[in-house]
């Protein structure tokens, strides 16, 4: 039953792509696994980087939220610093997700986080503290990681 909705969302995003965001289906037969390539927004710590994310839709989509994770290593208070690169905040949280929320909003939200991290909602407390208290040091590391892991 969610097929139609997912197909429509995918089609819409191909027709009118979001700024700096490319979407492909790694496996054409599996509409539930999307691969996103996101450009680091201009003026942000992540400018010049290309980030690969994976978006998976649950069977219950759109009644339950999709999960979004960074495949490219990123230095960010809201992304787990492990091999999962997962994030869970805002509308990605099950109790804040509404069935009428759309994937484009999710992607815009993620892109917004690259511009403005939310240290109060952090999964990486150390990085959040640094972001708040020592922005210079934070930017240095974040940019170094972009160079090392997210080069175009």
């Amino acid at each position, binding site marked *: *039953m969610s097929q*139609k*909705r997912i197909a429509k969302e995918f089609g819409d995003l191909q027709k009118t792509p979001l700024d700096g965001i490319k979407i492909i289906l790694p496996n054409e037969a599996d509409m539930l696994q999307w691969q996103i390539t996101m450009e680091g927004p201009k003026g942000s710590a992540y400018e010049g980087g290309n980030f690969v994310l994976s978006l998976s839709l649950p069977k*219950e989509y759109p*009644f339950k939220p999709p999960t979004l994770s960074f495949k490219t290593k990123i230095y960010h208070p809201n992304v787990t610093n492990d091999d999962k690169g997962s994030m869970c905040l805002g*509308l990605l949280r099950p109790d804040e997700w*509404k*069935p*009428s*929320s759309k994937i484009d909003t999710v992607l815009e939200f993620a892109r917004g986080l690259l511009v403005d991290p939310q240290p109060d909602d952090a999964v990486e407390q150390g990085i959040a503290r640094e972001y708040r208290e020592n922005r210079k040091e934070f930017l240095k590391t974040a940019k170094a990681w972009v160079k090392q892991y997210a080069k175009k």
Partner: protein
Amino acid sequence: MDSDDDFMSGHSSGDEDFGLEVESDDGSLGDDFDEDEPDVGFSQKDLKPAKKAYEVDYKIYSPSEIQAHQDKQIGEVSAVLGQPAEATAILLRHLRWNKERLIDLYMDRPEHVLEEAGLGPNTTTNPQTRVIKGFACDICCEDSPGLESYALRCGHRYCVDCYRQYLAQKIKDEGEAARIQCPTAGCNRIVDSKTLDLLVASDLKNRYQVLLTRTYVDDKEHLKWCPAPNCEYAVDCVIKRKELDKIVPTVCCACKHRFCFGCTLNDHQPAACSLVKMWVKKCEDDSETANWINANTKECPKCSSTIEKNGGCNHMTCRKCKYEFCWICMGLWSEHGTSWYNCNRFEEKSGSDGRDAQARSRQSLERYLHYYNRYANHEQSAKLDKDLYQKTQKKMMNLQTASGMSWIEVQFLDTASHALQLCRQTLKWTYAFAYYLQRNNFTEIFEQNQKDLEMAVENLSEMFEKPTTELADLRVDILDKTSYCNKRRVILLDDTAQNLKDGEWKFNVDISSKA
């Protein structure tokens, strides 16, 4: 909005919430409940007319009574606000059932209150499912002609299938009821129960009602669910959190479960909630040190043969050398009845011993182990007594056939078993209490009471373990000892609770509720 240290949500003089008349002697709590509704399981009349210092007033409510009480309040407030019952229910839930606050706020800024509660401006008339030409559901993207759809008063319309699935997931998977919002992102309109009735299957409706009642009790600061598994009753007791260093509010549910209204743990009188919390934490942290105590076997202090404890009684007799001793302190049993012997009190060593740090730390460990030993022992004895109680039923059956006693006549074993459980529960916590207690003029009486109860319990426990053949002859004795135990327990609790109320106890820790 409510102060944290306060169990009640509303405390203005006009509050008609049930259970406010704490001091009422006739036990008629709560004028909000219909007078003709029968008390459930527990009757205030069963209590002695003069309330003891350790007793609190409380009332027990069944799910249907709680429902009735909600409905009544909704009805009253609905009439005052001129809002339909459905909307009033949402408003009341939004303000955690504080009627006065709701009415005040509503009189001030009705639109604001409605908006905040998720009842924003109405854009459609009475909610109903409809077929609308050219409609496409934004959730499933279905647009076939004749598609039935539904919208709350906010006008956000979805197909009925999507709506149903959304509600089912909220109720079944997420246990949500009072605060389910419109499926539209950014719309905080609350789904009312009329909508629920219209859209969901009856099994979900029941679940929804249960969840609503649950939030009602959770929202009311002086209502708590009985923590016993599968028990559906709630207890109403007006005890403020900041009073918990003055009183230990034990309540007994209709299901017979005795628990503390302050912290919902099992009955822990006479120790205050904060002491219990500290004690349990300490025992967890020190479990390594104290592990050996839980052993069920010890060596006879005289001949060293292994002795197993298989009942609650702490009066041990070595099978081999017939030496009689106390399981707890390993001291000679015959001395326990005398006035100079102290099994329960920890004797602080005086003199040069307590000077250096090592000796002090050893002393503090010994002190802890002294109390922990007795605490743990009563816990374990209560378990063993309980095992015995399981056998009591059988014993009673045997006794009936052996002695020709009637069922009623053998009930004394049942009564004795209950008394043992209850008294050991109390004794157990007297040791946690004593551990934190500083010596003053009142501790001596406390220790005497503790000792008296302890002896009474051990005597009864000993009789209780006698072979069935002897039990019939012991009937009167057991009855006497049972009522003596209960009496000693009441004396101990009453005295301790009175001193707690009067602030006579000095503790070596801070027991105020902030701690």
